């Protein structure tokens, strides 16, 4: 349910963008959902339906998944995310604060926690489409 908080952010950001660009009706909002944070797409969609303001009345809410990619700063190794073998506590910690990955995940080659989350960290507003007031 902290997905609601993230969707509130998406709507606030999209609304601000719309206002700054004279968009009076949003037709599409594309959100990239990074795998690391393990958010539920259904919950995001449900939250969007419930939180949307009239500006988004006819907006399509598109979710695109992005796999998480880690790149080790120590040895250069790149690898992906799997929640296999993770306890529920750990998985939850990463769900709320994806940076907890550095506490619980180590480089699969050299064991270092000093890696970059190159892709797929969390929720990201990719594009919005809409109709301008004077169109």
């Amino acid at each position, binding site marked *: *349910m*902290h997905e*609601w*908080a*993230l969707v*509130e*952010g*998406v709507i*606030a*950001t*999209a609304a*601000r*963008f719309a206002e700054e660009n004279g968009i009076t009706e949003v037709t599409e909002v594309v*959100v990239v959902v990074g795998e690391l944070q393990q958010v539920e797409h259904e919950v995001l969609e449900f939250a969007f339906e419930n939180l949307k303001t009239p500006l988004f009345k006819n907006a399509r809410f598109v979710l695109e998944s992005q796999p998480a990619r880690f790149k080790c700063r120590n040895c250069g190794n790149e690898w992906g995310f799997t929640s296999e073998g993770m306890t529920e506590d750990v998985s*939850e*910690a990463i769900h*709320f*604060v*994806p*940076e*907890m990955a*550095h*506490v*619980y995940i180590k480089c699969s080659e050299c064991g270092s*926690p*000093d890696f970059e989350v190159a892709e797929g*960290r*969390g*929720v*990201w*507003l*990719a*594009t*919005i489409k809409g109709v301008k007031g004077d169109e």
Partner: protein
Amino acid sequence: MSDPRIAIIEKRFQKVRRVIAVSSGKGGVGKSMIATALALSLKDRGHSVGLLDLDFTSPATHVILGVEGLYPEEEYGIVPPMAHGLRYMSITHYSVDEPTPLRGEDVSNAIIELLAITRWGELDCLVVDMPPGIGDATLDTIRLIPSIEFIVATTPSRVAFQSVRRLLVLLKDLRVPIIGVCENMVMNPGGYVREEVERLGLEYLASVAYDEEVEEALGDPEALRKTRFYKELDEVSRRL
């Protein structure tokens, strides 16, 4: 296109009347002790108070409060658990006692995440325990938390105050409100810190004595309340 978390942070602080960061250019000057004591004494005075520990690599407020196994509730965001009457948020809810090797970029990201998803509700005051120095955490709280105010802690040592002076100059340059400077662990009162602070046009809030009982009281707010340290901080909180 953009990070959807930033736009929601302001709303999270809508019903928080004051945000006070306890900060210092220097480590080990008592920021966490002061932040915790201030939060508790504001609460004792009948205010609704939150405590946010932003020192991710050396969190201390959970040790001072003596809390363990707390966990936020997930409800349209996350709602911080209560700890001794405070709405209490700390990374240790998630990291427990594991090392948290975070680069600045990660610290920044984690702070933005916490500020975006934490629902403080209605608070008279949120006290923020800061990490030392002038890095990501300091720059982000200044940038992101609306109308944050600073209490800056120092010890009487010239080494400490050199770093603290740098922070004070920066905050002044940025026109960030500074409530004042709290000198802590004073053994021989009457040093030069008050003078230096007043020369910067800032308020010298208190000279807090070195107090042996503080160590004994770690983990036990009831014992902490009985210390001279707490009484001196209570006097500061009374004037806030």
